[in-house]
């Protein structure tokens, strides 16, 4: 059974600082998604990481995937208040209709 663990689950940080959210998963997969959810809103896709060593960047967010370590990271550079949201990683379960298995989410609060 594929399990996905995110940490930390809650992160409060100051604007201008850097931080990383981690997503570990328990069985083989080579495709991983990151989503963002604003308070009271639905989930929006941020990145899809398709292979080992994949790196995607948009603005102050950069995601990477290490399939050998079964680890993805979402790095925030020089955080700004607008990045406050909950971030979810989701791993594709390759042997079961490609269902997405979700992490618990990381609630990120960025203080001015």
């Amino acid at each position, binding site marked *: 059974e594929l399990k996905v663990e995110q940490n930390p689950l809650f992160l409060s940080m100051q604007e201008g600082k850097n931080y990383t959210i981690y997503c570990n998963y328990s069985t083989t997969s080579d*495709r991983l*998604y990151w989503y963002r959810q604003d308070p009271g*809103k*639905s*989930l*929006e*896709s941020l990145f*899809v990481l398709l292979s080992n060593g994949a790196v995607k960047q948009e603005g102050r967010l950069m995601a990477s995937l290490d399939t050998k370590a079964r680890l993805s990271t979402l790095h925030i550079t020089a955080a700004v208040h607008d990045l406050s949201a909950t971030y*979810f990683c*989701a791993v*594709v379960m*390759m042997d079961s*209709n*490609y*269902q*997405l298995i*979700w*992490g*618990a*989410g990381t609630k990120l609060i960025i203080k001015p």
Partner: protein
Amino acid sequence: DVKVTQSSRYLVKRTGEKVFLECVQDMDHENMFWYRQDPGLGLRLIYFSYDVKMKEKGDIPEGYSVSREKKERFSLILESASTNQTSMYLCASSLRGPYGYTFGSGTRLTVV
């Protein structure tokens, strides 16, 4: 852009009522999903469907049923609503295969 439309943004129902939550997608996606989201519990899969008239139980199907008579529409039914079904309900759809999900805007259901 793929659009997933949930019929109601907010809904208040009485205990014991039969409740229908509707979800429609406009991009010919094969797969459709219903999740509920509660604080601290992440996304929990209720039911999913890989094709018309097909349905599969997710992690928490008790107290729910679903209907998929047409490819674009996936309905979640609460047979007899209870207060512990007060939650945010999210519908999602995807293409068949290892693809990400597109989410609707969510229905916040309160059962009183």
